[in-house]
């Protein structure tokens, strides 16, 4: 009784998170690649309701920052001039979901720049970059999972349905892929693909590489399902009526695998988002100026950034709610299908 509700709860949570990222243009106050060389490495700014004199303001406001006297990296608030925040204002143009042109933004600061999560070396707004970077990372994860599941479904169904030497061959290959530590596999695949490419090509490359890594586990699970389903009476009956292999697979066997595929998707997507992050963090994925959760973290490889600018770590935390949501969804799905296995729930790498 509580189980469907649990499932719905996690689904709603995930839909909310994804909508925020999908609507990055609306939630982000600035263009993610717009630079402001006068404001490099500004710390996160605070939003106030009460000003320095103790007066309550009608709308939230913030104080611009300036360098503290005699310091080169410490900032202080200029309490003389409060800049009010306005909501649902017109700002820089963007395309919602890549299609709908719009200028509507959630908030704006009268043309001044507010860095809620700080700014990077070029004065780009971190909040905007995290939101837009999420689009890249999540899309890579979702597409990667789609590629993997497609591959896994094809291979698993072929192996389970046809059996014999095909089954033997495919499952040996799957074992090979399962045994490899996933990051090494990712590296090995990435090592032999071109390095200097345009952001879009790099993105496609990342999706393909990620998609090719994880097919083995879904393939094996699907093979198991197909093995049992193909002996069921309704399948035999359909075959007796002269249904072709393709028809049987598509019409009768594929629907039976839906729950396994769904659960696998819930497990794979966050892993693949992380895989994209890892590749981009190491400089093997999506390059600048495009932002992704991975390459936003790349600056942390410099010691100076690590020491002085802690807010550059904030993009790392963006993935945590998604991990939580997908983990919850996966375990709710597994409970629902009765396939309650600790192993599946807690193994976080595709291998």
């Amino acid at each position, binding site marked *: 009784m509580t189980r469907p509700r649990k499932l719905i709860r996690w689904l709603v949570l995930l839909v909310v998170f994804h909508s925020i990222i999908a609507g990055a243009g609306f939630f982000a106050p600035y263009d993610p690649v717009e630079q402001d060389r006068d404001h490099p490495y500004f710390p996160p700014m605070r939003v106030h309701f009460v000003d320095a004199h103790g007066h309550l303001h009608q709308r939230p406001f913030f104080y611009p920052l300036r360098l503290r006297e005699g310091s080169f990296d410490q900032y202080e608030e200029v309490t003389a001039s409060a800049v009010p925040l306005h909501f649902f204002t017109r700002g820089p143009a963007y395309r919602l979901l890549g299609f709908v042109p719009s200028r509507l933004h959630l908030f704006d600061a009268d043309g001044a720049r507010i860095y809620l999560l700080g700014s990077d070396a070029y004065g780009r707004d971190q909040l905007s970059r995290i939101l837009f970077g999420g689009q890249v990372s999540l899309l890579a994860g979702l597409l990667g999972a789609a590629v993997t599941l497609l591959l896994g479904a094809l291979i698993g169904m072929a192996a389970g349905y046809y059996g014999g030497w095909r089954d033997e061959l495919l499952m040996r290959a799957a074992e090979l892929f399962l045994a490899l530590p996933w*990051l*090494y596999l990712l590296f*090995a695949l990435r090592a032999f693909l071109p390095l200097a490419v345009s952001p879009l090509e790099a993105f496609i490359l990342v999706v393909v590489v990620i998609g090719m890594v994880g097919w083995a586990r879904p393939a094996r699970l699907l093979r198991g399902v197909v093995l049992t389903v193909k002996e069921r009476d309704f399948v035999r009956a359909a075959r007796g009526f002269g249904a072709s292999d393709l028809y049987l697979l598509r019409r009768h066997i594929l629907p039976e695998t839906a729950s396994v595929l769904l659960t696998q998707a819930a497990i794979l997507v966050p892993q693949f988002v992380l895989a994209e992050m890892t590749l981009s963090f190491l400089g093997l994925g999506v390059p600048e100026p495009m932002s992704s959760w991975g390459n936003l973290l790349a600056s942390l490889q410099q010691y100076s950034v*690590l020491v002085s600018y802690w807010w550059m770590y904030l993009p790392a935390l963006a993935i945590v709610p998604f991990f939580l949501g997908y983990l919850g969804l996966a375990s709710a799905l597994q409970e629902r299908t009765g396939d309650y296995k*600790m192993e599946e729930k807690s193994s976080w*790498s595709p291998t």
Partner: protein
Amino acid sequence: MRYFLRRAFHAVFLLFGVSLLTFLFSALTPGNYFDEMRLNPQISPETVAALRAQYQLDRPLPVRYAHWLNAVAHGELGFSFAYNSPVGPLLWVRARNTLLLTVTATLFAWLLALPLGVWSASRFGRAPDRVLSWATATLLVIPDLVLALGLLILAVRTGWFPTGGLVSVGFETMSPLHKIRDLAFHMALPVTALVLATLPMLVRHVRASVAEVLQAPFLRAAVGHGIPNRKLLYGYALRAAANPLISLFGFSVGTLLSGSLLVEVVMSWPGLGPLLLEAILARDLYLVIGGVLLSMIFLVAGNLFADVLLFWADPRIRIAASAK
């Protein structure tokens, strides 16, 4: 004996498959290490061609693979273009450091996971178990990259731990005791990251399998006989639950190797990870293949070790093996 032969055969098949796979991938690659030289006007095309010929990059793939296999059979893993030296020695130095890290982390992770998991299972569903479940769930939703970077920031800002490298400057002049302390000090951060990344999975598995065994009739009988709790849990239950856990050990070696790759790069630990990354960026073909293969050897060794353990711990396997 048959059992081990079969496992060993499996391992060899795995290594063979991986090497073939990496070579196949390398054949798909556009460009190679010498491409940049071709752009350099000071190097004549003939020189580049000669270099390519010297490293046999102009030969077809099967020939190259055969050559490489032959070299491996003679204990050489090929030649690194970038370092201009054989791959073997390069890898061994780094592999030692990686092993130091992963073996320590494995040890700590299991030493922590076993008592925690057993303790949690013995209080299944009660408050301590719930708290621990929450803790592991929390750790589970923090990806290893996020965890490693977070620890690094913490270390940098507090200055409690060194943030990179294997040893301090002046390591050679230290006394043996100080050397060990220095090394441990440098290892603390990467080992913590690795342990925290693998711990939740291990604890959950231990908890699940011990909890399952605790339901078994023979253990209820043992409780009825008044056998002390500690002996019951660690002597009986853990031993009966060992089978899936040992399989998990083999599996966790793979996860740990992946994790270690990342942690090494993040925390600049001079292991295989940074070397492999450099090699990928430089298109240093044989170094990449060697590195991947070496990690496979670790993995296979870990799995074989798990098999031996399994054979030792589970009488059913012993009997099945000797019955054949």
